[in-house]
């Protein structure tokens, strides 16, 4: 028996929609358009780790321009005013929000880490002994944005907790 991941692409899409409606696209004119292209490039990414009833990582990745636009929307400024610190902080917050919402859908007893931000493509970070179990890939104003979940293989082998 393995731990079934209860959070699928449709769940991720619902969380992402909430984030977009609340912060990134309050007027509902520029939603994240799903493409399903899991090979799309990224330039920056952020992640939170979850341990406990489910163990793995939740990763937010995008182009630098998409991250700048997100920071501009979060901080109510123009994209060209966004500093690197702004960009890092907003990427961390995006991972935290999505990770927190993912955690809420997991069995009780999961712990969320503080976010980590890497200003390099998602492929620059490796998650040893973890495999991607779900992901949402899309374009926001033509720029790549993705959210993916990576489950620890140890977690899979351990089986469900009583």
């Amino acid at each position, binding site marked *: 028996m393995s731990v079934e991941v209860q959070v699928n692409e449709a769940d991720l899409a619902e969380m992402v929609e*909430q*984030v977009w*409606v*609340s*912060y990134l696209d309050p007027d509902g004119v520029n939603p994240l358009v799903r493409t399903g292209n899991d090979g799309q490039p990224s330039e920056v990414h952020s992640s939170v780790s979850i341990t406990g009833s489910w163990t793995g990582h939740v990763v937010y990745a995008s182009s630098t321009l998409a991250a700048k636009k997100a*920071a501009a929307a*979060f*901080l*109510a400024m123009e994209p060209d005013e966004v500093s690197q610190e*702004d960009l890092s*902080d*907003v990427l*961390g*917050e995006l991972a*935290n*929000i*999505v*990770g*927190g*919402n993912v*955690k*809420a859908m997991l069995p*009780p*007893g*999961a712990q*969320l880490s*503080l976010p980590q931000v890497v200003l390099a493509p998602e492929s620059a970070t490796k998650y040893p002994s973890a495999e991607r179990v779900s992901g949402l890939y899309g374009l926001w104003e033509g720029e790549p944005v993705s959210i993916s979940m990576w489950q620890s293989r140890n977690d899979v082998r351990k089986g469900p907790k009583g």
Partner: protein
Amino acid sequence: MKILIADDSRVMRQIVTRTLRQAGFGDHDLVEAADGRQALDLTTAESPDLVISDWNMPEMTGVEVLRKLRAAGNDVKFGFVTSECTPEMQQQAEAAGAAFFIVKPFTTERFDEVFSPILG
């Protein structure tokens, strides 16, 4: 009234501040804390009327801050704005004496609904 906003994310402190303003609560004095320890120290030193706190913060979690305040006899109105919302957390928050629990992402309407009865 004085409001303390505790969140380790500068971005989220700004968003909470902006959302308070958009919900019509922009005239209150705002104080910011960047971790749990600061939240505890500033709540004691500044005596805010309301504390809006993140859950997951360095140094001390939000619920630990709340428990320490209550243990010290401080009954300031205290609640959470957090991306994490499990039934166990809500129970812990309620048991510790939290007045509200707002889940990120949140809207201006949600702030209005929660803070109108508190801030008037």
